[in-house]
């Protein structure tokens, strides 16, 4: 068994132990792969049924999509909404883009978290555990997509972000937004399948799509993938995030820690031994001699 195979088996075993029989309920072809969602922005009609379904499922703010005119200006997700749909006027006409947590494969927020309250589950969703969270907001500092939001006006604040409906997935259900989407703009599945579908659509309609799948490489790869008819920087995506998984940026520093923690004391003890013991230390010097040396005096 090669290393990758071994890791996969271990992951499957771990996942199975955690999730019981629920894995089968989704009938996933690759149960060991991360799940995610493919967003085809050319299919989105901006109905915001996903926003409503999300709010209702998670007991959050439910927007009045008919009357609130919220599409006029691009919004960010907030402490009351896991997901928002924005409208962008482009040369290809109005394009609607649903935004939420990207569920990075190597999540900066989960790496940043000192208590593992932000947690990358083995199935893919990044979840938050209020019993562990200390509210330091380091996840907000680290997230390249600026996703986690904080309840500043609560005595007992939560870190708020999309959970990819982890609880629903455990019951064998798709995320609420995916179930609510009337145009199949959202496609739930495992990452490899979603990538295959996305590539197939680009190959089949090379003039309809830009030849990039946002999320395939961004920040080391994300669980949510996007297809678009226009370059992604025109529809509110950052294209300067790089392909490096964000935890890589602190890895070198953390690797140095054990070396310093054991190397430096050894070095300093040696240095101290080399420092001149016999130097006459008059007056105040006696304060810093060891007990034995003091006795000799």
């Amino acid at each position, binding site marked *: 068994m090669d290393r990758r195979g071994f890791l996969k088996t271990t992951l499957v075993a771990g996942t199975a132990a955690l999730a019981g029989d629920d894995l089968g309920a989704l009938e996933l072809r690759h149960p060991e792969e991360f799940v995610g969602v493919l967003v085809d922005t050319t299919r989105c009609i901006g109905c915001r049924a996903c926003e409503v379904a999300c709010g209702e499922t998670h007991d959050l703010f439910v927007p009045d999509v008919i009357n609130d005119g919220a599409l006029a200006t691009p919004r960010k997700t907030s402490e009351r909404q896991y997901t928002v749909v924005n409208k962008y006027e482009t040369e290809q006409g109005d394009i609607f883009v649903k935004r939420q947590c990207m569920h990075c494969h190597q999540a900066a927020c989960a790496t*940043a978290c000192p208590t593992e309250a932000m947690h990358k589950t083995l199935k893919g969703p990044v979840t938050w555990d209020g019993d562990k969270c200390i509210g330091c907001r380091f996840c907000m500092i680290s997230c390249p997509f600026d996703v986690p939001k904080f309840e500043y006006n609560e005595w007992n604040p939560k870190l708020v972000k999309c959970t990819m409906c982890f609880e629903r997935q455990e019951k064998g259900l798709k995320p609420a937004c995916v179930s609510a989407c009337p145009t199949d703009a959202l496609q739930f599945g495992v990452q490899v399948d979603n990538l295959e579908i996305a590539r197939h659509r680009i190959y089949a309609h090379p003039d309809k799509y830009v030849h990039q799948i946002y999320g395939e490489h961004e920040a080391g790869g994300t669980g949510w993938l996007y297809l678009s008819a226009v370059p992604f920087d025109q529809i509110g995506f950052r294209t300067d995030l790089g392909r490096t998984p964000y935890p890589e940026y602190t890895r070198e520093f953390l690797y140095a820690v054990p070396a310093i923690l054991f190397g430096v004391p050894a070095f300093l003890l040696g240095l101290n031994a080399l420092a001149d013991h016999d130097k006459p230390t008059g007056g105040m010097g006696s304060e810093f001699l060891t007990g034995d040396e003091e006795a000799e005096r």
Partner: protein
Amino acid sequence: MNTNVATAGEFNRIVRFLIHELKPRGPWLTTFNVISIPVIVAGLVILCFRFIYGLGSVTNLTQEHPWGLWLGFDVVTGVALAGGAYVITFVVYVMRVDKYQSIVRITVLNGLLAYMFYGGALLFDLGRPWNAMNPFIGNSFGFASVLFLICWHFALYMVAAFVEFSPVIAEWLNLEKARKFLKSLALGTVILGVTLSLLHQSGLGALFLMAMPKIHPLWWSQFTPVLFFVSSIYAGLSMIIFEGTVSHGVFKNLLTPKGHHSFDDMVFGLAKGAAITMFVYYVFKALLFIHEKQWDLINTSWGYWYLLEVLGFVLVPAFMFAFGHKHRSLNIIKTAAVIALLGVILNRLNVSIICFQWYEPVRYYPSWQEITVTLMVIFSEIWIFRWVVTRMPVFSSEH
């Protein structure tokens, strides 16, 4: 039986002594008291609001700026300014340089109090402080987290600094056996303290590594941890000069003339150390700038701000330290120390607050409540500092 009686007698003596020492001394109506007491009371009231109505009720923090003055100044900057303790204990205990012995106690006390108060200020900023023990207990260790590392190192360093200072407490309580034992731990705790300082001073810089796309490129570098460590050395040295100068003015009556004289000699040595460290820091900054090919960023308002920090608040005080050391000018050195400290404050605030989300149209400015609580932290620390130095043998190294 006899030993029990003796121990009980000793215990009673210490309790009576403590009650006696806890009583305030000196005049009440001093300028410092008149200013600090209202600020501390106001700060406590603000903290009540903060814990009832949430951080948003007293701070200007937003979703774009999750860390503000309490994190950026109290913790990130405060810890850098407390770097003097590990530098001076390294020089005196590890390198055995006797010259600086008489300032070891006061510097360690300053470092210990700074960590207790500025690290402690983190608790106001945490959204769920009742979970603050989680990084230390239970199965929620975020081993891959830089902040997890810093939490542990803060805690361990406070223990190390307390043990380093504890012989003074034993001497104050007149516990000779305990003093001898605690003093024998000195070298070990100093080496532990230096190692932990090296890691958490640089670790504070590593906090911002993953924020790469959100920090202005002139202030983000893969080498920020090294820059934070090197600047903490001269920040600590400058702070010793600054605090020493203030203490020698305020607590003149506690000093022996001999101690006063040797402080000036020490300042010259500290200035030389600060000058060298600052030049190293400056060269490193310049190399990073050239290596990253950032020339086109300079002719912008952010570029001028960067030049002000690196030239005006690093290179200028570095030359002033060198000049002051060569020409034996205490005034130039003390001015340089103040400029260098402002430079470190500026650098830490730039990285943690000012240049964070620099492209966002809405900027973060601290609210008056945040400033008041920060002043409350500083003033309370000075209260405790004053209480300790007027009672314990901090300014003397003899016993």
